[in-house]
């Protein structure tokens, strides 16, 4: 099926050219990276644009950079690139696990993590990890740069606070010693969007961080749960008590993928299972 609405295709060579194009086209352009969401939306007329700016030719955006304290993932980096990085597997295990659980190989080869957060569907697999890592989004337009916390990034389902003339350059993730998991509930392995997802982060000083996707309009941290568990040793009894806080933290809907009740039920189970696994991983064991 072809795309019905005509558009012009631009392939800038560098970031500067892209920013000028964005300014010049004044809101009448969309950025094309992997296209695994955007092309479907254009075909199904959920999105329209007069201009597509393909950023895949910009080598500066295709890099994963690791400094002493931070990791930078460029806007052209695909989920396959993340999975193939041994360094990211070591340093950002929650994000690495989430990347592996995105759709299937043929999608991961093309889809970018920055595209994932720009599409901002409530079920996005990369968000729980980015939220527990306190990631920041590095953004640029023709006149300057700004940094947006992942906690402020999502404005609603499929909406972000990115302005039309801005380009995401990279995601910046601070490096911490930690362990953790991403638990995803899907109907089948392969293509399915998450019915529910939870990212779990633990560290040696008993800091606990939790974030969800697919069980609320935007992905979010679960602060009540974090405060309740803060600095406590995890026991079976404590896990049961904590799990009872989950229904108040999330606001799932019933849709084609599952009912609200099932999502709440499974979030409690995934929380308990995931936290137990994370504690084992923190002590150097295998999940």
């Amino acid at each position: 099926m072809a795309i019905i609405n005509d558009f012009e295709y631009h392939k800038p060579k560098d970031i500067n050219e892209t920013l000028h194009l964005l300014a010049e086209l004044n809101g009448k352009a969309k950025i094309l990276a992997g296209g695994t969401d955007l092309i479907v939306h254009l075909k199904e007329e959920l999105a329209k644009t007069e201009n597509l700016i393909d950023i895949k030719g910009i080598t500066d955006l295709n890099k994963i950079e690791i400094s002493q304290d931070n990791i930078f993932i460029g806007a052209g980096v695909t989920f396959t690139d993340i999975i193939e990085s041994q360094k990211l597997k070591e340093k950002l295990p929650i994000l690495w696990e989430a990347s592996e659980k995105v759709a299937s190989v043929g999608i991961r080869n093309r889809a970018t993590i920055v595209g994932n957060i720009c599409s901002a569907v409530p079920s996005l697999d990369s968000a729980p990890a980015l939220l527990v890592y306190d990631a920041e989004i590095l953004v640029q337009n023709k006149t300057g740069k700004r940094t947006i916390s992942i906690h402020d990034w999502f404005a609603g389902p499929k909406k972000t606070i990115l302005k039309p003339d801005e380009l995401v350059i990279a995601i910046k993730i601070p490096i911490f010693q930690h362990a953790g998991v991403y638990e995803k509930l899907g109907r089948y392995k392969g293509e399915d969007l998450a019915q529910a997802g939870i990212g779990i982060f633990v560290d040696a000083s008993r800091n606990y961080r939790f974030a969800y996707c697919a069980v609320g309009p935007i992905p979010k941290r679960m602060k009540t749960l974090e405060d309740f568990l803060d600095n406590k040793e995890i026991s079976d009894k404590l896990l049961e008590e904590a799990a009872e806080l989950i229904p108040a933290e999330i606001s799932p809907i019933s849709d084609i993928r599952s009912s609200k009740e099932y999502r709440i039920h499974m979030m409690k189970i995934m929380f308990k299972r995931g936290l137990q696994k994370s504690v084992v991983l923190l002590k150097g064991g295998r999940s």
Partner: protein
Amino acid sequence: MKKITLKLNNELRSVYVEPEEILLDVLREKLGVKSPKCGCDRGDCGACAVLLNGKSVRSCLVLAIETDGQEIITVEGISKDGLSKVQNTLLDKNAFQCGFCAPGMIISTTELIEKNPHPNLEEIKEALSGNLCRCTGYLPILESVQEATEEGHHE
């Protein structure tokens, strides 16, 4: 219309395309390559998979114009000099029924073997998981890939 040039199954090919034309349509309708199929048309089923610079992608989610200067391999390219080992095993074991998913399965398997010549069953399942088959229940396909990639397997 813009002229694009790509390396398709090891041959340089040029074709005129509109920006909104989808790679799958251009391959089938303008370049005469019929192995990629249109199943779901939204990236879910895998029937349109091709190798783009060695990596499997959904050609229904790629604009033809994006592939200017790139390299594409389809099943026609894989079997240019005769069927591959995996293709022969799939044939021997009668692994497909209608065959609509076969090109996607073969593309995914080819990509897998390139990275991992002797995958275990879990790795095979993971690599093929984005390819939907409505006939076979997958077992004969998985068994064929397993047999063809076993260590010490001879043709």
